[in-house]
């Protein structure tokens, strides 16, 4: 059972969270300039790394904040957690 250190609430059990997908994925922005290809890539294309992976988690049964979690997909080690609008690098 993974434990995740919510930047707002502290270390909590994973059952309080839901997984929100790849956080390397940058929203292309709602603009006429954005190409269909950018939306396509944002919506469908994902890396599937074995090792550290940046991902969104939602503290849905806690503070309801979306956070970014750097997690090793092989060992499930949680390497870092930051608020979702902050770069994870600041905390490392």
């Amino acid at each position: 059972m993974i434990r995740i250190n919510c930047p707002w609430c502290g270390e909590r059990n994973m059952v309080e969270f839901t997984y929100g997908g790849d956080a390397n994925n940058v929203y292309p922005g709602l603009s006429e300039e954005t190409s269909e290809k950018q939306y396509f890539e944002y919506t469908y294309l994902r890396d599937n790394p074995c090792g550290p992976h940046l991902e969104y988690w939602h503290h849905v049964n806690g503070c309801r904040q979306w956070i970014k979690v750097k997690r090793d997909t092989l060992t499930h080690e949680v390497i870092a957690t930051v608020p979702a609008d902050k770069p994870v690098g600041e905390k490392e």
Partner: protein
Amino acid sequence: MATQSNRLPGGGEIDRGKPLTFRFDDKTYTGFQGDTLASALLANNVKLVGRSFKYHRPRGVFSAGPEEPNALVHLRSGDRQEPNTRATMIELYDGLIAESQNRGKSLRNDPQRINNLFKAFLPAGFYYKTFMGPFRNTRLWMFIEGFIRKSAGMGAASGLPDPDHYDQMSRHCEILVIGGGPAGLMAAKSAAANGARVILVDDRADPGGQLRYEQYEIDGKKGLDWINETVAGLEAMDNVFILRRTTAFGYYDHNFIGCVERVCDHLPEPEGNKPRQRVWNLQAGHVVLATGSHEQPMVFGNNDLPGIMLAGAVRTYVNQYGVVPGKRAVVFTSCDDAYRTAIALHDAGTTVVALVDTRKLDSSYAQQLLDRKIRIINDSAIVSAQGNADGVTSVEVHSLSGGGAQRLDCDLVAMSNGWAPALHLFSQSGGKTAWDADRNIFVPGDSKQAECSVGAANGNFSLKTCLEEGSAAGAMAASSTGFNTAVQAVPAVSEIHESAYEPLWECPDPAKGHPKKFVDHQDDVAVSDIQLAYREGYISVEHLKRYTTLGMGTDQGKTSNVPGLAIMAEARGCSIPEAGHTTFRPPYTPVSMGALGGAETGEHYMPIRRTAIDSWHEEQGCKWIDAGIWRRPRYYPQSGETIRDAFIRETGMTRGSVGMCDVTTLGKIDLQGPDTAEFLERIYINHWMKLPVGKARYGMMLREDGIAYDDGVTSRMSENHFVMTTTTANAVKVMANLEFYLQVIWPELRVQVTSVTEQWSAIAVAGPNSRKVIQKIVDIDVSNEAFPFMGASGCVAAGIPGCRLFRISFSGELAFEINVPCDYARYVCEKIYEAGREFDIVPYGTETLGNMRIEKGHVAGPELDGRTTADDLGLGMMMSKKKEFVGKRLAYRDSMTGENRKKFVGFVPADGKTPLKAGAQIVVNENAAPPVEMIGHVTSTGYCVEHDHPIGLGLIRGGLDAWKDRVVYMSYPLRNIIVPMKVVSPVFVDPEGERLHG
């Protein structure tokens, strides 16, 4: 009643003052308090306890612990019958009932032992080859398969509901010690003395491990006394929690350990309100694995006969239970440990015919045996045993250097091929096992989680090392979790330094494969099966396991994995570490489904979410339906009505006068802030900036991929305050999505979102008389002029301030929806019902709600199926060309547009009578031979009360443009139903919308 002919007059941990009566198969026996079922059976000289899995060979008790592969029995009877329980782990209680498994009427005369004669035809891969062979799927095979399935098997479940209950608990600690032997106890003592919270888990009634059956002295006192003092000392500490009769079955991520406590399994029935078993979810800062080791067997011909047992187990039965499992014993070993069994047997009065040692060296214990006049046969091995269902009668011993064959008569063989550390939990933690070539054992490799292994689990078997490693590990674990690091003094012990262990993985085979040499007793896997797997190319250990089923029984190969892979390594001509080790997976020992389910069974399986008007519906006699975890009224039958009668009546009365419906379960999200309208612009496909205060609007959201996601009505209560509704099914998901957009993608937008689904109850009032009813309830003017279609306003309802009124309609009728703070919901509901009485107001449920929306052609869940676009659903006109919104760009992809899309239409059966079926496919030709092209499907079906005929909604390629008024066929091949139906507009009532605007 049989006497306990194998029981010693004294000694052991049993209480001879407390005799217990029990039954095994059709006989009654006695044992004593402190016995296991296995020790009590052995005390009564019961050697045959079961039949083997495949060949139905006679089998007896093999071990004295959780590794037992043979002595599996049905425990208890009736609805408490439990299959495949290990007799070695069942604590005896008075009145215990057990039955042998996998046999015919009688264990002794099992007709299927005939399989034993045909074993040449049942080699490894038998099932696989037969299933894939020429008889596959033939009638003959189906017929034979039944017999094979019946003969190969384990115990049977009772088939009755479990009368007991189960529990789950969670607990955290700094240090979790698994295993209460000397190493584990020292670790717990050391960690606890430094102040850390310690949990000690042990799978027996009392901790102690090997000290409960060995004859060691610690600190000048008996080992057992030291244990009792140590355990008492730990129990007196506030920071120590001891779980007895508890097996740690799984080691998961982040030091999460699953354990099962057998709270009442040692009793005839659970006492009081106690659960039978309890699962403990433990999470620890550091885990100390003191899980001990499992003795490994010798592999020789007929080594599965009853009376052939592990040497350590024999010693356990003598020392701990006061039972000698035979009168004439041969001890067979490749290590010093079994010498102590020879000594224990001799001292208990058993004749030890000889000790056969595969090694040439003189054991450290040799002199002790010679003093007892026990013959030692060095450099030799048992090559085969002889005997019958009553057990072994003799063994044939050959010299390993050639020549020198002899036969020894005996009724007990105590064998030891060394001890393998129990690495199961370590391996589950992610660690890789390592081969220790000096000691010929697999040991724990590098740690992947915060854990360490100590004592026998770490490959260090001497008592002194166990105590030292435990003490050091406890202190280290305490310091790593932020406590002091003082090391407990290790008590003095006296023990003999043992000489080296030299394993013999497979005994010589002078008769070339006969009789069979078993490696995995539970799965009936013999050396010849492993060799066959090798010849057929299944040489990796993972393939070997799956092809032969080696190690796949309920014992998970605790006494067969290491010999099996060693024999494969030999066949391949490689070293044991090159052959590798299969991955250990949870559970370590079987866990009952009941324990895993815990208390979440029956009505407690899921919470029931009730609206605030739930009790009123109940009083109205509604029938319920689950909507997610909500329960909603489905219909309100009057006497003798079927569901169909009821919804047709409810629909007719609502459209004829007025009806009311609890729509609380719709998701309600409160949005506030200066950028709320802008936010809605981005997430909905239609416009929101210019929506006036006091107005509601229907909105649709898309997913990022352009597929229709959710719909609902959102109202502007004030300039910066909107109230959104979502479908019941998507309420939770939409809320999380809105939070994602606001927190992650557009954090600059000044909008707050709050779920208020629970805070507001909602009641829809629909029908031509709804205005008259509502006007009696609310304090605002609800005339068409003052409060037109899509109006939204605060109001006082039935004297309750702070309510909201919306003029919105899902049914197509003149309709209102009133939102009430939930504490007042039942009161307001009653007032509406009272106010409507003069108009024969009818409460209606989800069946009528759904039927009326189908009549009106509104889309819902069956149409928003994750494949349809807004345009498919006839809502393409809503998609704004003037703004960007979520999903817009991908919704206009080529594949999502064009004439070939399946589009939303209505259906009427051509005969006006035959009901339609949701899920049925649509075909063009009623007589076409398969494969038939499917051009669409029916999504929802109902009954149009006004026009008195069945109706349907669905999706058809090309939509109305291609098919209007043409006949297509609804095909339901599973029931052989084909129905001609006409394609029509999906709006069956009031197509001009005059009613809702009236």
